[in-house]
């Protein structure tokens, strides 16, 4: 657009693309995973692939909060609203994720008696808390999802709810942890199919947790990690840094996004999270299966504001649609176009799997921005 942005400049991008092409060894391939859905979106939205040499391949990772939320967890929220007359508040993308019985939170909403229960979209955890304060007769449950960036705000509302002694507010916690998902991908037994030479880590996660939690990827798995910002030029710069590391046989944790990331991250935010949450021994991820110590749950001191404790909820795993390839796609083993349902039964209007829902999901990004690549387009 006619508004020059130093982070999206075409000349700089071309220069970086050429630098990557010069650095990349033509005798080999490079496969890097951008862990985070935000990077997937930036890569697709700006057509970054076109600026990379053909032997550098980007693989979309599982870092899209909506994509890894399993059906059973959404079913829990739907049941709460339908059977326990609760008002569920959650982020917009969650509403459209397909759940059991052909339902989604959005479709469930249409069946509710609005005088008793509701399902509402909020922009923040604080909005949900404010609703509970405003309407004390309404039982409000915040369906919390997300990686380390959204965890501190949820911790904050839980502390506030306790301080206020709120009786009509609780949180259904689905906060998950980035490093655990990376381990799952590197360790996955079927993961033999995907060879990865390095990771791009999300900067906003590291502004909270720092870069230290990635040390094991370098030390134990001997893979480089570059923590990068979300502008397309940030992503390209980090790809160049990964190519150099691979060429030099290094596997370091590097930081492209020096603007705000430190080794230790935000200690205050970490302390806040620590005070409210503890590790969940097991949590099921969509696509990655049940992973130990991969998610957070609310500490017993906050049980009164923990929807799982308060309503005696149990998690029951539910299988995904049998043709949906979200699992293999989230692990980087397949690409969206490999799914039989892609673009036919499954589109952003009629998503069959979670990867087609959020614009950060691999299938939605490919459908919205990239699907012309699957078909040779005749030029005029």
């Amino acid at each position: 657009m006619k508004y020059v942005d130093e982070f999206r400049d075409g000349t700089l991008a071309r220069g970086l693309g050429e630098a990557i092409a010069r650095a990349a060894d033509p005798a080999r391939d490079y496969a890097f995973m951008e862990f985070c859905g935000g990077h997937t979106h930036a890569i697709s939205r700006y057509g970054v692939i076109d600026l990379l040499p053909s032997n550098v391949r980007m693989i979309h990772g599982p870092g899209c909060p909506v994509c890894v939320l399993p059906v059973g967890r959404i079913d829990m929220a739907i049941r709460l609203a339908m059977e326990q007359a609760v008002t569920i508040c959650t982020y917009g993308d969650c509403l459209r994720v397909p759940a059991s019985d052909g339902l989604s939170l959005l479709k469930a909403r249409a069946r509710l008696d609005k005088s008793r229960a509701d399902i509402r979209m909020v922009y923040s955890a604080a909005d949900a808390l404010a609703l509970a304060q405003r309407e004390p007769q309404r039982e409000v449950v915040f369906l919390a999802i997300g990686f380390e960036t959204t965890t501190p705000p949820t911790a904050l509302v839980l502390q506030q709810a306790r301080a206020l002694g709120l009786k009509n507010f609780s949180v259904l916690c689905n906060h998950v942890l980035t490093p655990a998902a990376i381990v799952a991908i590197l360790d996955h037994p079927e993961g033999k199919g995907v060879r990865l030479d390095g990771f791009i880590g999300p900067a906003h996660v590291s502004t909270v947790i720092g870069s230290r939690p990635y040390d094991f990827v370098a030390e134990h798995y001997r893979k480089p990690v570059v923590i990068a910002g979300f502008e397309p030029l940030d992503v390209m710069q980090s790809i160049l840094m990964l190519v150099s590391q691979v060429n030099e046989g290094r596997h370091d944790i590097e930081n492209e996004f020096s603007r705000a990331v430190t080794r230790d991250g935000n200690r205050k935010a970490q302390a806040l999270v620590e005070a409210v949450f503890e590790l969940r021994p097991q949590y099921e991820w969509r696509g990655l299966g049940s992973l130990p110590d991969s998610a957070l749950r609310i500490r017993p001191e906050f049980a009164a504001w923990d929807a799982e404790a308060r309503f005696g909820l149990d998690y029951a795993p539910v299988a995904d649609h049998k043709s949906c390839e979200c699992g293999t796609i989230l692990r980087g083993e397949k690409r969206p176009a490999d799914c039989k349902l892609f673009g036919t039964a499954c589109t952003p209007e009629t998503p069959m799997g979670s990867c087609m829902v959020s614009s950060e999901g691999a299938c939605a990004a490919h459908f919205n921005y990239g699907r012309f690549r699957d078909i040779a387009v005749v030029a005029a």
Partner: protein
Amino acid sequence: MKAHYTRPLDLKQGRVDMNHGAGGRATAQLVAELFGRAFDNPWLAQGDDGAVLPAPTADEQLVMACDGHVVSPLFFPGGDIGSLAVHGTVNDLAVMGARPLYLSASFILEEGYPLADLKRIVDSMAAASRAAGVPVVTGDTKVVEQGKGDGVFITTTGVGARPAGRIASGARAAAGDVVLVSGSMGDHGMAILAVRESLAFDSAIQSDSAALHGLVDALYQALPADAVHVLRDPTRGGLATTLNEIARQSGLGMRIDEASIPVHPQVEAACELLGLDPLYLANEGKLIVICAASHADAALAALRDHPLGRQAARIGEVIADDHHFVQLRTPLGGMRMLDWLSGEPLPRIC
């Protein structure tokens, strides 16, 4: 109805009540003292059930278009539902190549709506109609109970006359044609969103709501009529959706250069903030022109010569493509699709 038999309409404190839509004295008074005075023209003054209008000339064709307006909020920077109701329908006629001639207006009012605000809307609508030279020649008023409307809904229908030879249509896009826009994209949509989300910006974003028939005329003055292949106003769904409609209609594809699409810096900044793409935001005073490449320079010059087209730009070309994809070259230099807007629940914007 003689005004001195009843107290005049209380346009300061009064509110719409059910009687105003019942068809009796109250309705007649509302029509006479509010609509009649504001729109004042001989057809309306006849007071019959319809307007009797002169037939167009023999070599012209009649064009008719209709547009319902439910924008919320009713008043926004750069316009209101009244002016929008005029511009919306006038523009539908204009992009058909027609000279807009007459409008009808149907008002659905909600019980309890302040008459002072209704007067502001009607006055603004009348001003827009006069400025466009397109009179409101007939109308209707209904009132619905409180809670069953949203203040005011306005549906306008327009009649225009299309001179011979003006045959622009989405299906006429041809491979090799050039795609032009008359100005910045997304202003109206963002002006509405900014009010709703109460975003504070240094300088408020204004809706681009405007009547486009003058601009269309300027274009036809500069080009042979059959060189103008497609005319569209990219309203709901924005530029992206309109280009996809044209691609589907014509069975062709497009290649658009994102860096050449004009977007106001504030709109761009607000989009960043809200995670939106200005190419999907509505416009109410912008034109998309697709014409033969040999006439592109003349078309661009004609648009830029007109006050509504100062920022006109050439943004891409039509290409052969069996899948009729609209492709976008990003400012970074990569390619991606510019797809249809997919089902986001966006607020009512027109």
